[in-house]
């Protein structure tokens, strides 16, 4: 047990150094949300996920960083599940504006007659 304490401390130091030197995007809850929504669906309901992703958007803005690709789209998808279609549409448009590469999928979803 005596050897474990310095090891614990060293691990904290080591893991602190593992962060990539710079990132293109702010990475908050999105990766974890997309995992936990599957493994703990009772806890990570759509409305809980919405809160987590809104937190990401605020944190990214505060850090003057860009949100990661897919965040606004996923948020829109959650709003659609919650029946908040206006908010869903707004988030889909936000994804498209930030990442024009998303346009084919987003347009496919926004196309009238196509159900999400």
């Amino acid at each position, binding site marked *: 047990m005596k*050897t*474990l304490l310095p*090891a*614990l401390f*060293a*691990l904290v130091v*080591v893991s602190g150094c593992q962060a*990539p030197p710079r*990132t*293109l*995007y702010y*990475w908050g809850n*999105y*990766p*974890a949300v*997309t*995992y936990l*929504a*599957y*493994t703990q669906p009772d806890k990570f309901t759509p409305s809980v996920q919405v809160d987590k992703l809104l937190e990401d958007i605020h944190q990214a803005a505060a850090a003057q960083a860009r949100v*990661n*690709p*897919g*965040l606004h*789209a*996923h948020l829109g*998808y959650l709003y659609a599940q919650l029946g908040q279609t206006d908010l869903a549409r707004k988030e889909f448009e936000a*994804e498209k504006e930030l*990442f024009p*590469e*998303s*346009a*084919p*999928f987003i347009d*496919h*979803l926004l196309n009238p007659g196509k*159900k*999400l």
Partner: protein
Amino acid sequence: MRNGPCALLVPVLLAMAGCVTPPPAKDYTEFNRSHPRSILVLPPINESTDVNASYSLLSCTTRPLAELGYYVLPVAMVDGYLKENGLTVPAEMHQAPLAKLREVFGADAVLYITIEKYGSKYQILATTTFVYARARMVDGRTGTTIWEGQVQIANAGDSSSSLQEALLKAILSQVLNKVTDQAHQVASMAAYQLLTTPGQGLPNGPLQPEIATAK
């Protein structure tokens, strides 16, 4: 260091590190010809017995790909869309006609991943967590294979870690296993290693600022 569990671990870790010889750099001719901007990652086919494996690894793919400079279609939303359209399991999704995927998602490239092993093996000195996967990326229009890769990680002692780091992780692995999802952490490392290892993973993509401005 006193003789103890640590002294036993050193030769084991040295042996593990010694086994890994880097393969020669890949040929990126087809990849560069295809020059994808956007990537559709389909939920991985899971050959392991852990039901969480597919979505664990899937959720770990967005960050490395996006940081390399690619647009990654929202993985959970893609999965939801495919399920709502009758493709209920990854094996069915992987069989979807490329033209149909192209029509709906408009991705320049499609990434197909198969998980071969996923999970933890409990032993006396340390718990070993395995994530083995292979992957293939195809051009979204032609279906030509533009990249292939594989990754095999056992525990946290992968080849890129320093010995000291690997040793610390081995010591603490059983402690960590009690409080965290070790396999998911290893899956995250596996995704990074698979997709970003220089000469093996994908090259930087067009959304990297220095590449965008160089054009």
